[in-house]
């Protein structure tokens, strides 16, 4: 019964979505307020029905109702309760339901919080949003229905893929989807602006918080996924340039570019046409990501099932939205008014530079990800494009970005003073040079470029701090003035500084962990020990333990540094009966920002076991940096200007008395 309720709720949501997709558009054409007013309530109701549908699926999972095919294939009654919840989206059908849930949530949020939007713009945005929603409801109902029943219910389910039975997975997909799908809002705003043929600085101010929120979630989602891959897949890598990872990286890069170009549009009313294009491209990359992951074109741990019909369906959605949006853009964009002028050396110029490099870097990732598919389709040759390709293309393109990141925020709008700005970063540059020299002096081995990477990271961090300290008059004025300035400084300025600082933190982690990380693979008998970096690990023995739906073999290690014991590590091998699969559970020992990483290989007949030990210096900084960027985003999002909302676009002077305060 519950599954059927979920199914019908989804059908009703589709019905509402179709109404919401057409009625407001007609309303804005006819200037009929009743029809325009339909958009808001339908968006809220649509979200309500999708939520009911999602709750119904969750209920069947929690109750282990194996008469539902989807539950039977992906759940097990002995699984811990938390994984019964997470397995709702640990499969293709359920994860698509989560996708539309978040899509509907964003629609409802625009309807609920968009009180200060002009009525027609809001109606158009919600209509476009509903087009996307309707397409995906059709996709789910037509080819990925999670509510199908099995005539004769089996007693036990087939269990969730053991690799996915992990807490990291509980948070990773929802965050990632909040990011992916969140960009649909800026897409809908862009299309609505093209439909209305009118766009101004206020538009950018409305779009920016949504883009920022989506970007923040995507940042955390990618970091979460990378950390999950790091500890769960057992090879200690944090980024594999796997097509599925690239699928999430591309919208992130484009979204970052969009955030920056929207600033120019908001402050200077320039780059309008480009910002619209970026909004379209960012969400298009999200759709392409969904297509790559969901269609089974690529095989990876994320591809739950490959069914050609689904691939074709998503491809059709992709072609319709991307093609349609770009065609509309080509048709309407030339009629949008030109923006303001600015000199190449200016804050705007720096942001254009940022956009140029970000989009080109994004394009290289795009080429690297899709080239193998294209080549195979055309010539039948199969190739793999891996880390070397991306290090050679993406890396060099990111260097100028990082070099300029501290300079940009110091530049004045309209016409900047490069020399003045350069003088202000002399301190940061000096620190960077000291860092490079120190790294060369203190380390041996590793690529020559690594110390420069450290220097670049130090430059980014110090540069971001320089800008903040100057604005606060820290060290110059009294403590009281600094405090007063800190309070008066717009949160968005704080946000920029913190996020740019986070970029440096991540880079530092990436450079250190990948350059000076050490690794040993050895076979150990009980009592034997292995030393790595300054640590000694002694293998104490093996223990067996029975978990809920698995058995695990735990190896106990004592870790010593010098004479003192610093901790114990218990890596394990779990074997899952139902799927006859085993997983390796790595053990991590955190020391400051560095980690020891231990994962098991196969036990040998003589009682020895193969182990992989890594020492990863400063590896935690990689994800902490992402967290810092997230905090920067949150600070910027809490800016008074965005909370209070945009001012009404200036009406023609004739209608207004001359009492308007100057902006």
């Amino acid at each position, binding site marked *: 019964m519950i599954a059927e309720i979920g199914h019908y709720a989804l059908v009703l949501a589709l019905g509402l979505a179709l109404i919401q997709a057409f009625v407001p558009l007609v309303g804005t054409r006819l200037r009929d307020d009743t029809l325009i007013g339909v958009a808001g309530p339908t968006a809220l109701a649509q979200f309500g029905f999708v939520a009911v549908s999602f709750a119904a699926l969750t209920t069947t999972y929690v109750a282990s109702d194996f008469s539902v095919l989807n539950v039977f294939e992906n759940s097990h009654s002995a699984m811990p309760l938390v994984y019964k919840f997470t397995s709702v989206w640990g499969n293709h059908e359920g994860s698509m339901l989560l996708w539309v849930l978040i899509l509907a949530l964003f629609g409802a949020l625009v309807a609920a919080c968009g009180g200060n939007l002009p009525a027609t713009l809001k109606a158009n945005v919600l209509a476009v949003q509903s087009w996307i929603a309707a397409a995906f409801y059709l996709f789910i109902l037509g080819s990925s229905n999670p509510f199908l029943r099995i005539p004769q219910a089996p007693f036990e389910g087939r269990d969730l893929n053991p690799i996915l039975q992990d807490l990291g997975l509980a948070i990773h997909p929802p965050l990632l989807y909040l990011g992916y799908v969140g960009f649909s809002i800026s897409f809908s705003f862009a299309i609505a602006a093209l439909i209305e043929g009118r766009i101004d600085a206020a538009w950018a101010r409305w779009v920016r918080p949504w883009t920022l929120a989506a970007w923040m979630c995507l940042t955390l989602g990618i970091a979460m996924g990378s950390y999950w891959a790091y500890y769960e897949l057992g090879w200690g890598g944090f980024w594999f340039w796997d097509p599925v990872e690239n699928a999430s990286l591309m919208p992130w890069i484009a979204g970052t570019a969009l955030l920056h170009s929207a600033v120019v549009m908001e402050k200077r009313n320039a780059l309008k046409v480009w910002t619209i294009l970026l909004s379209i491209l960012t969400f298009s990359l999200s759709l392409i990501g969904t297509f790559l992951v969901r269609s089974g074109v690529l095989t990876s741990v994320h591809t739950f*099932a490959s*069914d050609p019909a689904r691939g074709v369906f998503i491809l059709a959605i992709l072609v319709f939205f991307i093609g349609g949006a770009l065609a509309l853009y080509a048709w309407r964009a030339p009629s949008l008014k030109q923006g303001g002028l600015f000199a190449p050396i200016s804050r705007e110029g720096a942001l254009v530079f940022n956009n140029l490099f970000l989009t080109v870097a994004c394009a290289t990732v795009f080429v690297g990800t899709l080239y193998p598919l294209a080549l195979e389709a055309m010539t039948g040759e199969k190739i793999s494009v891996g880390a070397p390709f991306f290090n050679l293309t993406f890396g060099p393109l990111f260097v100028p970005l990082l070099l300029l990141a501290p300079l940009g925020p110091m530049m004045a709008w309209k016409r900047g003073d490069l020399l003045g700005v350069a003088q202000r970063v002399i301190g940061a540059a000096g620190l960077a040079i000291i860092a490079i020299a120190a790294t060369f002096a203190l380390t041996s081995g590793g690529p020559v470029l690594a110390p420069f990477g450290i220097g670049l990271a130090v430059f980014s961090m110090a540069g971001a701090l320089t800008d903040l300290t100057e604005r606060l008059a820290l060290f110059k004025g009294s403590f009281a003035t600094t405090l007063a300035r800190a309070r008066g400084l717009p949160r968005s300025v704080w946000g920029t500084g913190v996020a740019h600082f986070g970029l440096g933190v991540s880079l530092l982690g990436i450079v250190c962990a990948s350059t000076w990380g050490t690794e040993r693979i050895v076979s150990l008998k009980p009592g034997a020990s292995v030393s790595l970096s300054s640590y000694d690990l002694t293998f104490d023995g093996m223990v067996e333990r029975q978990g809920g739906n698995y058995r695990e073999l735990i190896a106990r290690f004592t870790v010593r540094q010098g004479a003192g014991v610093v901790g114990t590590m218990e890596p394990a091998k779990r074997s899952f009966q139902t799927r006859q699969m085993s997983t390796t559970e790595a053990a991590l020992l955190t020391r400051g920002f560095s980690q020891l990483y231990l994962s098991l290989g196969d036990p040998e007949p003589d009682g020895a076991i193969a182990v992989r030990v890594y020492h990863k210096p400063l590896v935690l900084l990689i994800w902490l940096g992402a967290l810092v960027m997230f905090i920067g985003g949150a600070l910027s999002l809490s800016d008074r200007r965005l909370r209070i909302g945009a001012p009404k676009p200036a009406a023609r002077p004739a209608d207004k008395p001359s009492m308007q305060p100057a902006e």
Partner: protein
Amino acid sequence: MTRKQRRLVLIGGSLGVLALAAVLVLTALKDSIVFFNSPSDVVEKNLQPGSRIRLGGLVKPGSLERGEQLAVRFEVTDGNRAIAVRYQGILPDLFREGQGVIAEGTIESGGGFKADSVLAKHDEKYMPKEVADALKKQGHWKEEAGAKTGAKK
């Protein structure tokens, strides 16, 4: 500067960066991509020792030998030809005889293969797509062993 000049600067700059990216991409594509080959391909294409490839197929049943210091040796077959693979390290959790595998490394003189990484399939349903295609080409594809998944029964 006039609007036109500024636009020229912008367009020029963009083209410059794009050209730089294109050069980077083309060099990288020339040097850093790895071709996938089945054991039959290796023989038919007469690949030279030292060339770096991904070798994919099934682990030949009974061919796995473990040596000292985590050294392993196994054969990768596509039904027609088999190539001996040497590897030192820990095999993935899902490495099993008779199952699909991809080994990345270089061809040695004498027809062997030295792998520096070995990838196995992700679960019992999944076969690396390249391997599945190669097996289909060789006519050794068994539907029940392959990537037959999906919710439809």
